[in-house]
Each structure stands twice: as C-alpha cells, then as structure tokens.
C-alpha cells in the first residue's frame, strides 16, 4: 500500500512530543543528584510506577508486532502475549522485593550487594549493555518503519527524530521524566486499545463477496520500475497500488453481517467462519525481474484460532522433536527473560520500599495482562478489517484504527510513536547507568563526585542514544521481532541464573556470579549466531547448514548459566565451608 502522510497524525504526534518535552524540562530540576537521576529519589508512587512498568515493557514489538502477527497468522501471535505476561510472574514472586532491598541504581548493584566486587559490576555492566543494545535496535528500526508511511519521511529521519527526542528526555530529567513519559504512554496505550476493541466488537463481522479470488502482484524491474497488478505503482491516473486486504469470505449461516458481538461471541463466530489470508511467493526471472505474488488463501476460522500456523510455530504440528524443542525454548526464554531485563529491573529502585515494589508489580501485571488480552481482539479485528497492507504486518494496528476513523488513526499512530519513546528512554537510561555506575566506577580508575556522576551519565546517555540511532539506520532491513527474541534469550541466560542463585543459595560465590553472567551471555550469543534462523535471515545461507539443532537458545543456555554458577561456586568456596 502507498500510505498518504496524515496531517492529523503529524499534528497529534507533535502535540505528544511537545507535552513530553515540556514535562521533561519541568521535571529536570528534580534530577540534579545521582539518586534523582537514576532512581527518581525512590519517590515515585507505586501506582504510577506500576503503569510505568506497562509503558516501559509494552514496546513496539508488543503493540505493532503482536497485533500484526495475529492479523496475518492468527492465534500464534497471542503465544507471545502469554509468554511475555508469564515473565511478570517470575518478576513479582522471585525478583521484585529482593531487587528493591539489595540494589540502588542498576541491576549490577543488586547482584553485587553481598560481595562488593568490581568483577561482578563489570560482568553485569557488560551484560546490561549487550541486552539493552539488542533491545534498542528493533525499537529504533520500528520508529523508522512507522515514520515512513505515517509522516511521509524517510526511514532515517524517523530514527534520528525518535533518537533526538529520547536523548532530550533522558538528559533533562533521567528517571523522573522517563517514568512520567512511560506512565502517560502506558495509560494511553491501554485506554485506546480498549477503545479499539470496543469498536471492533460493536462493528462485528461482515463478508466481502469475491474477496477470495483477488491475487495481487508486485513486479520490480532491474531498472527500478515497480508495477502493481500490471500497472505502474503510484496514486495517479493509470497507476495502481495494492488493494487493502483482510476479509471474511463466509460467516456461519451464510449471513452477510453479524452486527455487534459480545467478547466470547466474537471468537465463537470467527471459529465457524472462513477468513481470507494471503500467502506470498517470490520469483526471479533471468533478466533480474522480481515478481512477488500474493495469493488469497481462504482458511477456516477454527484453523486460525489454533496454535501452529505461523512459520515459526508450524513445527509443533509436525513430527520433528527439534521443532517442538524450539517452541518450548522460546516460551521458556519469554518466561525467564522479563525478570532479567535491566531496563525493567531498574524501575524497582524508583519506589520507596519493598511493599511499593510489590504493589507496583501487581499494577503492572494488571495493566500488561489486560493489554495482552486486547491484543487478540485487535489482531483478529485487523485481520478482518478490510484495511490491511499485505506487505507490512507492523502496520496492522494503525490501519485497523484507520478503518474506523482518521482521528483514531492519528491517535493510534502517535501512541505507537510514544510507545517507542517510552521503551527507548528506559533502555538508554539503563545503558547509561551501566556505562557510568558499573563499568567506569568499578574500574577504580575514577572517583566521581555526585554531580560529576550525573554529568557523566548524561554524557553516556547522549553517546548511547547516538549509537542507537546509528544501529537503527544500519539494521533497517532486520526483522524486529527476531531481535527482541535475541534480547530475551541473552537476558535470561546471562542475568537470571546469577540473580536467582544469589537470592536462594548461600553457597553462591563472587566468582560463580561472574562466570554465570559471562558464560550465560556468551553461550546464548554463540547459539543464536550458529542457529538456522540467523543462517537464513542474516547470513543468507541455508538454515539446514546451521550448527545447532534449533534456533532458540533458552532451554539450553539458561541451564548452562545455572550449572556454571554452581560448578564455579563449589570450586571457589572459602576453605572450611562445607
């Protein structure tokens, strides 16, 4: 689809940006000390912190990625919702209160509370930077992807725009402004997702006659000319653009329209309907012409609402054990990864005590869980909205909104931008904390005053922000959900074993923690780099030539992290200790 830049979207987006920047400037005076800059003086009310958890956690991958995946493949996208939410159970029951009790500014503080070891700070600081950078790339790429169709700007402009705004937010008031931006974003995201869901249910389903017979083609010639459905691509006379898709070819009882539906009725009707999805094939001729053909594929609703239709999950319906292990490994990493993400963990330092940490996590679970329930309605609503861009699943949620009204489209698009702002702010703050508080100070080479520490952290925020902008432009072709999966796996493998064992095993030693963080991080990275998915999508090699049996590392590398910690701790325990 060729998206016309929306003036209304630009206006709403600018209004959001002005409010955000104004808030950051206003709050800047509260972040003069390092306690204010990194942890908002621990004075954020628990309810605000809980909603900010949602704002921090519900990234572009959650909002745009999951909705798009459900819209294109059905239930499988919801598996991510379940896994992402499940991770919060680990955060609440295992990590929340000890994190608040043990730490001060960064994840490394908690890990190092017992030993006061520069080695632990160094290892945890490196792990924080690696995980945050992996998480930053897809957010920045997502920002560029959004800007292109919505504001009519090039991809790199979107990345630079978001990067510059986030740097301003983080530099002016650190955690104070980051928290309020995340609070606003989290609130808006949930409220407007609910609005979309209510509208979807009120509209119900309707059939589109002839929807199942419309094949579409994009032909890209070597001279750069692009033809869509036989005509030059464009909006002018004699030109063509792809038709929006997302249709129902048959409803139960062969009715044409259902009218408003209840929350359960929505699924029951869809279960008995037939929906038109599209498969794509790419052919290349000898002269270099590339033809992409989108073929309609009517599918029973019962098939759409079951797991195992997305290419990544298809294996669970086959007989291959490695495919099933790949699925289990992904769900395991999602479950363990949340409680290991440094930008989430530092949010525990912004409240006054353990009780507030606990209560804010409960609020976070309520907000995030509610949003994830809504993702299934929004994704399936987009699937049947008749407004989908068959080439871009990330645009499913904004286009669903456009199928209702231009104003809603503008608001949802602006919220999608704020989604990126909120998450990137948290990531840059976590990275800046790791760079200054963990890496630089742990080296022992510099002793900073409080004022110097804040100035250095602001400088680090600018550097990390610029690096993020560069990576966002460099990796623009990279699949965003792919990178988020990497971040979860690396975080869970590197951080969770050390954190859990420190809390629950008195035999844990300093050397054990350092080894577990480094081995967990290295093994998960190595597994990812040697996996079939990376071979195919990054190196352009056949997936079959991969050196590991399945792509998701969690089920192997998280236990490796635990085993390393136990083995090294036993080997390095102090003399006389049994």
């Amino acid at each position, binding site marked *: 689809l060729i998206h016309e830049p929306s003036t209304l979207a630009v206006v709403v987006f600018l209004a959001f940006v002005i409010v955000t920047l104004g808030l950051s400037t206003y709050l800047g005076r509260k972040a003069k000390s390092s306690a204010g800059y990194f942890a908002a003086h621990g004075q954020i009310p628990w309810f605000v912190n809980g909603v900010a958890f949602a704002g921090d956690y519900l990234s572009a991958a959650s909002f745009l990625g999951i909705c798009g995946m459900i819209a294109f493949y059905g239930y499988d996208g*919801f598996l991510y919702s379940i896994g992402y939410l*499940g991770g919060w*159970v680990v955060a609440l029951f295992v990590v929340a209160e000890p994190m608040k009790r043990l730490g001060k500014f960064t994840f490394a503080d908690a890990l190092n509370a017992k030993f006061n070891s520069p080695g632990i700070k160094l290892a945890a600081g490196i792990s924080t930077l690696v995980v945050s950078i992996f998480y930053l790339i897809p957010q920045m790429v997502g920002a560029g992807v959004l800007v292109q169709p919505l504001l009519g700007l090039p991809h790199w402009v979107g990345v630079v725009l978001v990067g510059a705004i986030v740097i301003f937010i983080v530099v002016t008031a650190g955690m104070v402004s980051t928290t309020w931006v995340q609070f606003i974003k989290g609130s808006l995201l949930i409220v407007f997702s609910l609005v979309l869901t209510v509208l979807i249910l009120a509209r119900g389903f309707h059939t589109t006659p002839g929807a199942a017979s419309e094949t579409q083609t994009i032909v890209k010639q070597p001279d750069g000319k692009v033809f869509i459905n036989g005509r030059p691509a464009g909006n002018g006379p004699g030109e063509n653009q792809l038709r929006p898709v997302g249709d129902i070819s048959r409803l139960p009882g062969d009715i044409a329209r259902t009218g408003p539906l209840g929350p359960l009725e929505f699924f029951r009707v869809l279960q008995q309907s037939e929906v038109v999805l599209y498969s794509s094939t790419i052919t290349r001729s000898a002269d270099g012409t590339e033809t992409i053909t989108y073929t309609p594929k009517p599918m029973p609703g019962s098939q759409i*609402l079951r797991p195992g239709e997305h290419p990544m999950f298809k294996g669970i319906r086959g007989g291959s054990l490695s495919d099933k292990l790949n699925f289990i490994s992904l769900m395991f990493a999602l479950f363990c990864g949340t409680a290991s993400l440094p930008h989430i963990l530092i949010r525990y330092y912004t409240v006054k005590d*353990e009780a507030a940490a606990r209560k804010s996590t409960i609020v976070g679970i309520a907000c995030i869980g509610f949003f*994830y329930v809504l993702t299934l309605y929004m994704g399936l609503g987009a699937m049947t909205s008749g407004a989908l861009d068959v080439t871009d699943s990330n645009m499913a949620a904004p286009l669903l909104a456009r199928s209702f009204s231009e104003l809603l489209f503008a608001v949802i698009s602006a919220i999608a931008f704020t989604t990126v702002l909120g998450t990137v702010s948290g990531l840059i703050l976590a990275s800046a904390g790791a760079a200054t508080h963990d890496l630089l100070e742990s080296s022992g080479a510099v002793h900073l005053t409080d004022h110097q520490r804040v100035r250095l952290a602001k400088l680090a925020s600018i550097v990390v922000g610029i690096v993020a902008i560069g990576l966002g432009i460099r990796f623009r072709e990279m699949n965003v959900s792919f990178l988020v999966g990497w971040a979860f796996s690396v975080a869970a493998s590197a951080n969770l074993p050390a954190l859990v064992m420190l809390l629950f095993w008195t035999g844990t030693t300093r050397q054990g923690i350092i080894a577990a963080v480094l081995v967990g991080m290295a093994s998960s990275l190595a597994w990812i780099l040697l996996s079939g998915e990376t071979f195919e999508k990054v190196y352009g090699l056949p997936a079959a030539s991969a050196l590991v049996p399945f792509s998701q590392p969690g089920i192997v590398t998280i236990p490796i992290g635990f085993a390393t910690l136990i083995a090294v701790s036993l080997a390095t325990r102090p003399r006389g200790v049994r």
Partner: protein
Amino acid sequence: MKRITSSNSVRCDNLAACAAHVSMLEPFVIRQCRIRFDGWRGPIYTARRMFVSTRNSRIGLALFAVYLVFYGAFVLLAAFSPQTMEATPLAGVNLAIWYGFGLIAGALVLALLYGWTCRQGAQSIDSADADDGSRP
C-alpha cells in the same frame, strides 16, 4: 550461627521462626534485633524487615510453583498435542483461547493473592508487636 541478644522491635518467637525456616538466614548474625550479613557492605536490616521479606519470599516461591505448573502444561500441550487446543469445551470458544486467557487472568489472581497475603502478614506482625508493647 544465630544469636539473639535483644528484641526491641520484634518478638523473639517471630525472629526465631524466621531464622529457623529460612536457610537464607543461616549466615546472618543477629545482633540487637538487626541483621547483618557476613561480608555485607550494604545497609543493615531490622529483624522485622528480614522476617517479612523471608516470609514473602516463601509465599512467592509457592505461588510461582503453582503458576509454573499451569504455564508448563500449556507449553507442553501446545508442543506435543496441539490438536487438543482445538477442542471447544465452553461457549464455542476453543481451549487455546480459554487456556491463554486463563494464564493471563491466573497471573493477576495469584498476584493479588500474593499482595493480600503479604499485607496480612505484615499487619499481623505489627498488631502482635503492638499487643506486647514491643513496637518502638
């Protein structure tokens, strides 16, 4: 070794129960109702705070185990018996959706239960301290 030399802020039986039940407290030296961890460089915690923390930790682990069973069963069912997920046990909605919603709602229910239990525990200690006049 644990040693209690004073009980200004909490009752000794609470503290003893705390120390006896939680292996994590083994290396702690309890002195004047404050707990210091061997080699610890951070803040020193009151016995009451550590008691509440360890009690919450036990409850949290139990609830975590409950959720893990349901989450694990969901993952294994989807991996090894995906056709079971297609069954429509209630209201014409399939098991995959019911189970998924159940896991999300279940997380919230357990979270609220945890919050309520922790709050009750903290209140009961406070009221016990107030009853015997040991509350500072």
